[in-house]
């Protein structure tokens, strides 16, 4: 076995499904990196992928990943850059096959091994698990999953870093997982490189926090950064983040020289608090990380040193994310112009609601927002000046009854000709009815989940 390197560079390549297509290529061309990390799976993504798989059994994974692999292939095949991605969605095997095709096309098929992590998909086992007494109660409402069982679209346990570590040990150069925790995708290469043990809580926690910092791509390197935002340079060429990890668990967050954006204590702190719960207890399948132990220090321009992180033993459960059908919704918008834009929009809302009422339409929820006046701050927003140039009326409805939501979408356009004046902005046509796929968080006993690692 080769000597353990002093530093290992894990680069955030894409932070969600839909992220910048050229970021992975820029990460391998801008300077040295050892791993590319792709995080594709938001909570609702699995259900979208499940629907795609139902239509076509060879689908159900993040297809952006295939093009991304192709775009970085020279670096993978010739320089040995490794890839860890939860691109597999609900069909990691099909994803691996698609990557195989790309490798073969570039005659790299015999050089690059692919590791596939599965075992997170609980859909085929769901009834068996429920029958065995695993109720999968909703962590928020405490309801048993049986109440929505007939509407379930997907059910996946969040796997940790161990199966990815395992795949890397078996020589995989590209590791494709289904539902893994976002943070495990970064932590696994670190623990694999430095040989961190299962009970090396502080270092495992450090790896988790490294993952948390870079899992949203450029959101830690100047993107969406409020601190002194006017002075953040060249966002058009924003540098995606890189973690330079060390054996002791400390790491540097940085980006390639010459790229835009900024890596500073401020930009990193903003990302650390993003989607934070109880900071003392960030629970993952591998370790519980303590965010109150994190120390940050400047280490030169666009370099932040992170150290001092503590962790403790984790729980006996894994988180499960279930997606289920939960009715329908539609949102309609119209724009009202000066003079008295807000007053006109308010009248239009009253007229619309009265018509919906007369039609006998009853919704589980109807919500009106006036974009430009109160949509993001609600009653905390100060009164808008009477002479604002325009206001967007935005009305949303939700119901289990699809026909009622359909009927609502027909009531927006008529307002242009038979409602208050100075109205425009209907170019998009009738609002679209959307089926709602809701999210059901639950816990399951770790012992019943069997992660599977395969080299293909």
């Amino acid at each position: 076995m080769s000597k353990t390197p002093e530093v290992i560079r894990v680069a955030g390549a894409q932070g969600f499904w839909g992220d910048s297509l050229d970021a992975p290529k820029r990460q391998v061309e801008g300077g040295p990196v050892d791993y590319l990390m792709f995080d594709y799976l938001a909570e609702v993504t699995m259900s979208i992928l499940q629907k795609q798989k139902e239509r076509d059994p060879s689908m159900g994974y993040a297809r952006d990943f295939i093009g991304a692999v192709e775009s970085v292939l020279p670096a993978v095949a010739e320089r040995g850059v490794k890839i860890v991605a939860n691109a597999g969605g609900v069909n990691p095997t099909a994803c691996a096959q698609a990557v195989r095709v790309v490798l073969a096309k570039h005659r790299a098929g015999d050089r690059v091994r692919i590791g596939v992590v599965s075992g997170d998909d609980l859909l085929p086992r769901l009834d068996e698990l429920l029958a065995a007494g695993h109720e999968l109660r909703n962590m928020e409402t405490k309801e048993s999953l049986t109440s929505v069982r007939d509407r379930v679209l997907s059910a996946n346990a969040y796997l940790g870093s161990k199966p990815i570590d395992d795949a890397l040990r078996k020589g995989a150069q590209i590791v494709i997982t289904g539902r893994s925790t976002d943070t495990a995708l970064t932590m696994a290469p670190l623990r694999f490189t430095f040989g961190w043990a299962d009970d090396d809580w502080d270092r495992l926690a450090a790896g988790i926090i490294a993952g948390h910092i870079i899992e949203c791509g450029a959101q830690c390197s100047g993107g969406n950064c409020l601190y002194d935002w006017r002075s953040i340079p060249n966002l058009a060429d924003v540098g995606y983040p890189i973690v330079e990890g060390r054996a002791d668990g400390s790491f540097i967050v940085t980006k390639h020289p010459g790229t835009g954006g900024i890596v500073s204590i401020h930009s990193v702190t903003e990302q650390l608090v993003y989607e934070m719960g109880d900071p003392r207890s960030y629970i993952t399948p591998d370790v519980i990380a303590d965010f109150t132990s994190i120390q940050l220090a400047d280490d030169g321009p666009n370099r932040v040193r992170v150290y001092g992180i503590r962790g403790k033993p984790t729980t006996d459960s894994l988180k499960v994310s279930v997606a289920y059908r939960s009715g329908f919704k539609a949102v309609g918008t119209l724009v009202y112009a000066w003079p008295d834009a807000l007053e006109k929009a308010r009248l239009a809302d009253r007229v619309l609601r009265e018509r919906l009422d007369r039609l006998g339409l009853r919704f589980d929820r109807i919500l009106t927002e006036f974009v430009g006046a109160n949509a993001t701050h609600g009653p905390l927003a100060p009164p808008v000046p009477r002479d604002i140039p325009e206001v967007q009326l935005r009305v949303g409805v939700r119901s289990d009854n699809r026909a009622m939501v359909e009927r609502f979408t027909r009531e927006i356009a008529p307002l242009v000709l038979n409602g208050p004046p100075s109205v425009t902005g209907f170019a998009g046509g009738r609002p679209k009815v959307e089926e709602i796929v809701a999210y059901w968080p639950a816990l399951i006993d770790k012992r019943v989940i069997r992660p599977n690692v395969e080299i293909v």
Partner: protein
Amino acid sequence: MRVRLVDIAHARSGDKGDTANVGVIALKPDWYPLLARELTRERVSQHFRDVITGDVERFELPNLKALNFLLHGALDGGGTLSLKTDAQGKVFSTALLRMTLDVPDSEARKLGLPGAA
């Protein structure tokens, strides 16, 4: 004197179901103790009383010069159920930054707060 929170702190927010989290970070490390003292759970609950339907939880991160607030019942059901523009609470942070704090003049001067003579 009255100090606008937006002049002494920055913030980022995210979601977990129907809960929005807002991390508030002091613009200067020296200003954190003031934030920790003045930005109480009660005051933040009061600020959001007509906006959220649930409780507020508060956590301190002195190491990051930050406070984390969990605002329950903030997102009209949250995630895909929500009909709000900001269904995932991405800009809830800015609504919290609308708060103002009353700071004794002498302390404001000592800390060099914006607007302190």
